[in-house]
């Protein structure tokens, strides 16, 4: 929070904040209900209306979307969007319990699945339809660890090779340990203002050009296909149509790689690869930091970590740095248009936002 205020070039004051959105699952159960008031307390915003947004892992993306609507409705010089999750201070059993609460309880959980298992099913189906993509999954992990090593805020700074990824123990066949994002603590915050007021705060604002979103059936068993997340597709369609952009306008992507297979799906769902082509695109190096379409330059959920409510907001933080040329060693050259993709559960909710600078 302090970091968000400190990052404002010409300074901003908490008293300018007229509304706030808090993205959090409430992992661990500490303050399940009315967490909005707890944010107001902690952030020195007592009195300011705060709305808590909970869409599992997509909470951040949806909070941004709500904040954008609040800004567009006027009357708010400054709207705060923050996401937070504290995940490491509970016992192992409770952690696994909380990791499972956002999947379909009635059928998937009672069959013995957590998200690793559901994404294992997704990967199984992807392999059945498009051939074994283990090598591409390993490349996703290796590439994102490579990026994370250059991100001081990343959970992991260690590089891993494809061979290490492939040799790791399996968690949910065909996914192994290094195909899964870690359990992390984290928080991120953004300040939004109407474009006409932005120059009061900075000469180089980052614009939110569109925020699309979508939903799908909670359980994958009710969807016609496993290898495509319709919520992501719908969210991207809405965002691109609203902004009037083409896919080729985008300099780099921040996508929701909670499991490596999810990054492959994202490339296809968002319209950057044809169905079944994401593995080839990934193995070609196109999604590396120096490729033609860098993906997850901050390390992604895979290496940066996935503090549930914070993730969607932290993607925008990375975009803010990148578009202003402040990403240091991991700077994507010439980045001026970016996309953030945030998924809740195994594709049950999704938010896609577009950003530009200058």
């Amino acid at each position, binding site marked *: 929070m302090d970091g968000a205020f400190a990052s404002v070039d010409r300074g901003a004051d908490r008293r300018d904040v007229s509304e706030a959105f808090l993205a959090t699952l409430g992992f661990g159960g500490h303050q399940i209900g009315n967490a909005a008031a707890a944010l107001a307390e902690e952030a020195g915003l007592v009195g300011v209306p705060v709305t808590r947004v909970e869409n599992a892992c997509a909470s951040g993306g949806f909070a941004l979307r709500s904040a954008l609507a609040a800004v567009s409705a006027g009357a708010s010089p400054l709207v705060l969007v923050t996401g937070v999750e504290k995940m490491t201070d509970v016992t192992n059993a409770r952690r696994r*319990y909380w990791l499972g609460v956002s999947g379909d309880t009635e059928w998937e959980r*009672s069959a013995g699945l957590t998200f690793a298992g559901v994404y294992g*099913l997704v990967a199984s189906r992807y392999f059945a339809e498009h051939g074994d993509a283990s090598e591409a999954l390993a490349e996703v992990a290796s590439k994102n660890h490579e990026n994370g090593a250059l991100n001081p805020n990343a959970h992991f700074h260690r590089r891993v090779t494809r061979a290490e990824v492939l040799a790791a123990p399996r968690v*949910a*066949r065909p996914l192994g340990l290094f195909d899964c994002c870690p359990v992390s603590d984290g928080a991120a915050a953004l300040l939004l203002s109407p474009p006409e007021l932005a120059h009061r705060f900075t000469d180089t604002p980052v614009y939110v050009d569109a925020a699309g979103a979508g939903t799908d059936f909670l359980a994958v068993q*009710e969807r016609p296909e*496993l290898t495509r997340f319709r919520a992501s597709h719908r969210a991207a369609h809405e965002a691109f149509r609203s902004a009037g952009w083409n896919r080729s306008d985008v300099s780099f992507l921040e996508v929701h790689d909670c499991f490596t297979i999810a990054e492959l799906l994202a490339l296809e769902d968002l319209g950057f690869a044809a169905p079944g082509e994401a593995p080839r695109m990934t193995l070609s190096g196109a999604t590396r930091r120096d490729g033609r379409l860098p993906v997850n330059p901050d390390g992604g959920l895979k290496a940066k970590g996935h503090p549930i409510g914070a993730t969607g907001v932290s993607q925008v933080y990375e975009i803010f740095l990148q578009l202003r040329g402040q990403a240091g060693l991991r700077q994507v050259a010439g980045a001026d248009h970016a996309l953030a993709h945030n998924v809740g559960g195994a594709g049950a909710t999704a938010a896609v936002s577009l950003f530009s600078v200058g």
Partner: protein
Amino acid sequence: MRRVVRVAAYVPAGASNWAAVAASDEDSFTLAATAVERVWSGRRAEPGPILVHALGDFPEVVEWGFAALLGRETVVTRSPGTASQLAKALEELEGGEGGPAIVVAVDLAETSASRTSSKSGIAGDAAVAFLLEPTESAAPLLFGKHAAGRSAVAATVRRARSEAAGGSRIMFVGDWDRGAGVGSAREAKPAGRDRSDNLGTVSEGAYIPRARYLENLPSRWRFLAEVCEACHRTTFPSRRVCRNCGRADSLTPVELPYNGGRVVAVTTVSAGGQPTEFDAQVAGSGPYDVALVELARGMRVTLQVTDIAPGTLAVGDHVDTLLRRLYPMEGEWRYGRKAVPVSTAGSRGPAKTPA
């Protein structure tokens, strides 16, 4: 008067070590349920209650479980699981008037070994179910062949045969297709497994309250779906509203066949990847497979896989489903269907009818 018109047996697959391990998700109720649904298979008799007489030691679920399984009002009566009680029950029901009746016997106590397993709360070795329907023509029941290699069923048949007196019909009972020597699931069970009815493991929050569990049993146990007369799409699981057009006044219930599914996707959940409700299962028998299975009408269901070593099932394989224990919750076992490979679904095949 009623006559036995059909008999079906269910003998758990005991052919491999792994099947025996996975059989820990069996209990006397799941055995009886499988035999009952086989003997009732395809029957859509006139409305009215079905009398179910259950012989053996059962958990409390037996009092209401058959109604949920058959989707019919049932009147459940019970007696101890002995062959003489079975013969008595059949005799009384055969002479009686009224609608259809099912007699199901599990874990008959004539064999000392199965008595032991019953006392320990472990699944018995076999279940046999008899369907009795009102008929004017059939002569009284006479038992014929017995099941090879399965002492429990064999004991039933031996006893019943000795008590039969020169009737005119021969009834074939049991698992004769599999032949002798398939081994005993009980003998193959490894030592040290957690087979206790440990019902203390209760999750919190993301659990299914008992009322909701009961409400959804038609979809979970009978694969109840709904066809919308307005848009012709099918909704499964049943949710009393069309998942396509949202209408609630145009739905016709339909039960999807519980056999003949096809694997769309499958994963192996390793230790640490399971929800906490499955901790005891993982500690006892290790990793398990979960499959997305396509049923009729393109409907899909997520099912745990049992009776086969994890990692064996593949996309495209055909599976049947059987009622099994899922996990303990709120002091009782929750039951639901699991997928089994077609080749190991116990004594399969159509229920035999008398010659």
